[in-house]
């Protein structure tokens, strides 16, 4: 695993001309070690979090079998980088949607398919205990509005992972929506930048919403049942530089808005 992540140019898209910068060896090594640790403790942490969500919080999904079947079928049918871009309503959207897309035990055997996350450092990695927890759940904490060099290094790490077949999850809204609708006001354009850095990236847009999610909240209510819709997108842009990243992020947010509209039309 460490060797797999440390290899510099033999990823599936290397032949397609990867434009992302070379990741420093220390970062590659750190990612390799984290992947290995996640894999080793996975039978405990992944199955444990699944049990907590299922039995302690009583979370459920509408049409769960169908969601999971489609996810696995699509992953099998297509190779290449996959970025998951989801709407953002609660603190625990990430584990919920990861569990919705596949049973947690499945990720024990398909570790690369468990998405990497970029939680806000002040929320999720503020003390040693939470830092360990987020580490074990494949998180690379990021500080919103923090040092640009540090943010850039995290994005480079994510591009590196994408190019090597790992799934990455990001929230293009940049923060939890205060209106409970897809919110562009704090859009995180790193999502578009990441798509550009990993050529051929397909974006799995995910719209996740609990039946009782009517207002801004930290957590879903206990016993919540979730609607989870997916839609694949292959964003492309003629625009260059930062404007290209913004354009791609806009396309993703537009798709999420369409999915949200569909959700409310069917409700």
């Amino acid at each position, binding site marked *: 695993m460490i060797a797999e992540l440390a290899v510099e140019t033999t990823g599936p898209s290397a032949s397609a001309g990867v434009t992302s*910068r070379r990741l420093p060896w220390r970062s590659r090594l750190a990612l390799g070690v984290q992947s290995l640790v996640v894999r080793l403790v996975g039978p405990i942490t992944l199955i444990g979090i699944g049990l907590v969500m299922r039995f302690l919080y009583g979370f459920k999904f509408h049409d769960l079998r169908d969601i999971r079947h489609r996810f696995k079928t699509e992953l099998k049918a297509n190779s290449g980088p996959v970025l998951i871009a989801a709407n953002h309503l609660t603190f625990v959207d990430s584990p919920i949607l990861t569990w919705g897309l596949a049973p947690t035990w499945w990720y024990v055997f398909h570790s690369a398919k468990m998405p990497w996350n970029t939680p806000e450092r002040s929320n999720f990695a503020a003390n040693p205990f939470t830092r360990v927890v987020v580490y074990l759940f494949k998180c690379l904490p990021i500080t*919103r*509005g923090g*040092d*640009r*060099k540090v*943010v*850039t290094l995290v994005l480079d790490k994510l591009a590196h992972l994408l190019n090597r077949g790992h799934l990455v999850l990001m929230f293009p809204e*940049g923060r939890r929506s205060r209106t409970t609708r897809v919110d562009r*006001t*704090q*859009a*995180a*354009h790193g999502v578009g*930048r990441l798509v*550009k850095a990993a050529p051929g990236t397909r974006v799995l847009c995910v719209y996740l919403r609990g039946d009782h999610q009517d207002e801004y909240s930290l957590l879903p209510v206990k016993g919540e049942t979730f609607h989870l819709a997916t839609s694949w997108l292959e964003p492309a842009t003629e625009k*260059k*530089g*930062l*404007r290209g*990243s*913004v354009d791609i992020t806009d396309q993703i947010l537009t798709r999420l808005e369409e999915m949200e509209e569909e959700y409310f039309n069917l409700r």
Partner: protein
Amino acid sequence: MSQQQIFEKVIAVLKRYTKNEDALNGVSASTNILEDLKVNSARLVDVILDFEDVFNIEIADEDADSVNTVGDALQLIEARIG
């Protein structure tokens, strides 16, 4: 375009996004755009795009990362204008 003209245009752009207009009065090259001018981090992208429009230049993602202070912005714009 003179340095003074570039500086004035940069300040005009920043004025649209700053939450601390008082800080604009004593602005210098070392003024931090996010911390001192209290520009929302999500709006920094819009600031850079406005620079592109105002100065008719193109800024890469990587170059945008180097903009922390007003001086960084001036340096970048001057380099792009040539």
